[in-house]
């Protein structure tokens, strides 16, 4: 499917989606509550078959943490970006998609480690790179520590 068809497909599943900024891929901003059901539909439906989540990451923006999911169908060769904006910057929380794509489990552990976003229903949410007693989440824009070289 091309960009318009994919966007239309997501609109049919989640009517209150908003178009994203990407010019490269089809991109939809969806409410956090509908993320898991949407992803499940996209993965399992014959017309979309998004079986490959190749990148999952977070971005710290002014209006909140953006969760960005890059997914692709290895059969139909189309790519879609789903974005969720988490407005709570103190205790951000979103549902895990690790039950849909195994690779997501580790992307999410990395995001939890570096952004402090909690994933509900995650099987093993621990820090991945930093030590368990590390204070703070380094990839947040407001992160400060005593030895960072300020620029």
């Amino acid at each position, binding site marked *: 499917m091309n960009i318009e068809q994919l966007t239309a497909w997501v609109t049919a599943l989640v009517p209150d989606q908003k178009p994203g900024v*990407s010019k490269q891929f089809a991109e939809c901003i969806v409410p956090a509550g509908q993320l898991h059901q949407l992803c499940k539909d996209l993965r399992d439906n014959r017309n979309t078959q998004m079986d490959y989540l190749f990148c999952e990451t977070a971005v710290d923006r002014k209006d909140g943490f953006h969760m960005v999911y890059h997914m692709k169908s290895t059969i139909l060769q189309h790519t879609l970006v789903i974005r969720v904006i988490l407005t709570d910057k103190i205790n951000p929380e979103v549902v895990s998609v690790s039950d849909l794509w*195994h690779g997501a489990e*580790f992307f999410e552990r990395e995001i939890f480690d570096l952004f402090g976003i909690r994933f509900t229903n995650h099987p093993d949410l621990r820090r991945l790179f*930093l030590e368990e007693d590390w204070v703070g989440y*380094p990839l947040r824009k407001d992160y400060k520590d005593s030895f960072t070289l300020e620029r």
Partner: protein
Amino acid sequence: MEETLLDIDLKDREEYIINMGPQHPSTHGVLRFETCLQGEMVKYIIPHCGYIHRGIEKMSESLSYPQLVHLTDRMDYLSAHMNNEAVALCVEKAMEVEVTDRVKYIRTILAELSRIASHQLWWSAFGMDLGALTTFFYGLRDRERILDIFEETTGTRLIQTFITPGGLMNDVHPNFQKRVREFVTYFRKKLPEYNQLLTGNVIFQERTKGIGYMSKEVAISYGVTGPSGRGSGFHCDIRKLAPYSAYPFVKFNEITATEGDTFARYWVRMQEMSESLDIIDQLVDNIPQGDYMLALKAIKAPKGEFYHSVETARGELGVFIVSDGGPNPARIKYRTPNFSNLFVINKIAAGHKIADLVAISGSLDLVIPDIDR
């Protein structure tokens, strides 16, 4: 020492936990496998990473694009050229500029030479992991020739930072074409030796065939790309799916196997080396004339989000840039191939013997700094 509840629990099930790494020859870097064993059988593996986490993504947020390219070499140091190329292509895509054909050709030749050098080192170390020490000498002897070519052109042997947004750091050395041609002729003769030495060896085949089976579905779900994914029949070669640089101009095959075992992953890499030789062969005599660097006033990505992926020696390296229009990225994410390739290990190695774990992790060809970043 007092016995904890965990110790008693493990003892009842006759299980014990050993750590493989963080400093262990077969992990090829600082990575720790917390391995639960029952006798010789692996029950489960928990990988512990972060020993070499340098915060490259955080550092990059305060560096300009030409500066942050230097950090990418330090991720997968055996695919340094491809890592540079990934950032360069992503920034060029954002700026909507296209480099000259000369640059494209040279980038692709360098990338394919790196791929051969990387597979040579992997082959050397893989043989050694399984007890065949000779491979190490054969592999490194031939890899040295590629590093010499790199040294002459780029000035360094391992982490070159030669490819940069807008082109190349410098033009290639006048000897470049001659030496690359010499290497292709030389290595075409040597590659059959590799197969005679290891591929056909009965002991080697017994150690690898049917070991560490990964199905295509598992490979896709975990996002295992590169030769490891293609060994399971996952068509994931970015050079074919979204050709970049000079790949649209050349004919080559995407090597896949369907067996999905350790030997299949081995076989795919061996075939890829000769495919890479073919690609270089088609390009090296036809490098067009032109500038090696575009005349760009300032390297700034416009406001927006950009994603570009390239095929490194280990799989899909994606660069995701979030830009506010300044000289620095607001956020840069590297979707590194080894990160996704590592975590499948529990799925494919559980139930095998501890010695097979070495073979399986060797066949995934992990480079640890690429996981930790």
